[in-house]
């Protein structure tokens, strides 16, 4: 029967102190990150299984994501183009794209809150890099996004819109999203494990974010003065770094400055908190 399978992920050297110096704390946080990336196949599998389990037993499976987004975009599209007196052909592709991209951002933020409380049983039964669970949330949401992209493609095809090769400029934006998502899961995952009432607060903030950010309304509906202030809205900057290139809407440099600035800030806060909290998360979940 048997084998000499031996665990390799577990560090074969482990030295932990009660009073850790600043440098030691950073060392452990970095090794968590590296260890998590090394176990990327685990994170990938966990994220994929999450999506599969969510639609277990249903015939269309994850394509329900696509369908519900399509229904929502179609309904909202016709309703709002009527309300805002906009041309459907101009408005619907904008709405489809915005709605899908915002959907990713919103669910990423919301699910980041339960990054570590969800797998508490695993966290308490084996030493595992916390980054594994961050990757899992990112993968899960990226897969949902991939299913929704179908809606964008179909709407663009119906209205015969081809974004052109500017599309590729969305790639740096997606890279920023990836990094920000991981930072967000480490920060909110740990913070929400410690303080259980953060999640509802976060969800309320995202609700407000949805209305103050041009997702269902177009930025050119604003006065020029208000438009100039838009880059101050972090949600706008982050949405626009991916949406702008696809719509070829001529992004201002301020949007890039804002997106990079806010991302840097997020990463800094997230890292500082993770370095401080990493060893305590197990006691919080």
């Amino acid at each position, binding site marked *: 029967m048997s*084998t000499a399978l031996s*665990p*390799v992920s577990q560090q074969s050297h482990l030295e932990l102190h009660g009073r850790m110096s600043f440098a030691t704390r950073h060392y452990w946080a970095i090794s968590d990150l590296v260890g998590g990336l090394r*176990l990327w196949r685990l994170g990938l*599998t966990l994220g994929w*299984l999450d999506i599969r389990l969510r639609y277990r037993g249903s015939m269309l499976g994850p394509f329900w994501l696509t369908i519900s987004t399509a229904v929502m975009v179609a309904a909202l599209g016709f309703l709002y183009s009527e309300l805002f007196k906009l041309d459907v052909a101009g408005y619907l592709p904008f709405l489809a794209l915005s709605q899908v991209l915002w959907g990713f951002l919103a669910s990423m933020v919301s699910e980041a809150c339960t990054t570590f409380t969800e797998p508490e049983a695993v966290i308490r039964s*084996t030493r595992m890099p916390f980054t594994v669970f961050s990757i899992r949330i990112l993968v899960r949401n990226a897969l949902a996004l991939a299913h929704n992209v179908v809606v964008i493609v179909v709407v663009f095809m119906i209205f015969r819109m081809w974004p052109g090769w500017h599309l590729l400029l969305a790639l740096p934006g997606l890279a920023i999203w990836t990094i920000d998502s991981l930072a967000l899961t480490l920060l909110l995952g740990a913070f929400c494990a410690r303080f259980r009432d953060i999640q509802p607060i976060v969800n309320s903030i995202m609700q407000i974010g949805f209305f103050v950010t041009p997702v269902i309304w177009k930025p050119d509906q604003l006065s020029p003065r208000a438009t100039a202030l838009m880059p101050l809205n972090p949600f706008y900057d982050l949405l626009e770094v991916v949406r702008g290139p696809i719509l070829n809407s001529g992004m201002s440099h301020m949007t890039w400055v804002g997106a990079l600035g806010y991302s840097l800030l997020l990463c800094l806060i997230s890292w500082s908190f993770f370095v401080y909290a990493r060893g305590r998360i197990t*006691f919080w979940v």
Partner: protein
Amino acid sequence: MKETAQIDIEDLSVWFPLYHGSARSLKKMALAAATGRLGRDRREHVVVRALRDVNLTLTAGDRLGLVGANGAGKTTLLRALAGIYEPVAGRIRVQGSLNALLDASLGMNMELTGRENILLRGLYAGLSKPDLVRLEDDVAEFAELSDFIDLPVRIYSTGMVVRLGFAMATAIKPQILLMDEWILAGDAAFMERARVRLETMVRSAEILVLSTHMTTIIQDWCTRVLWLDQGHVRADGPAAEVLEQYIGKPLPAPAPADALT
């Protein structure tokens, strides 16, 4: 690459903060901060001292049994050794690959199929692709799942779930093996095959740390016993000696001839 296994623990303390109900909430923290009571609130956190100044050195060949009442800190010590609970004070040094069998359900998801559960368990252990295949073969064969392997664990019989959990837990052989007593539960009814498999794993581990209430198992398997009492080390020494102190009377029978080690 393979070094001999070694564990050093110096003055290890592990405390659990208890965030009672609202003490955990932001509201209370914010109110406390606004009224200048944050400091006091901090000190008023109820803390459970699960382990206090534990010292322990284990080298290759050691078989340690942990005994003590419920809540004495046995499982906490196992978790600290596994690097799950990081020390509040003191130092832990562990050298060697380690596997902790603390929770039968690690990675076991009732909604997933047997095959998916085995894959996840292998990925948690960081196995390479060829090793994942070997793991699957080994576990499937031992657990005798046959066609059920591609069905959700939810529909398995109780016996199949136990076999699958046991087979996964015992498939990976570490240098340092930490065991909580769940794996021995229902020992009487346990198949002979399972016993052999478990003993093979125990024998191949360089260091064994086993937490149990069953003194006969400790007599069979352990050479050394650590008696924990409310987080303190009450006694540490040769198995027979400490067990007699712990039970409070001489041990019933000498260890059987087929004992390990």
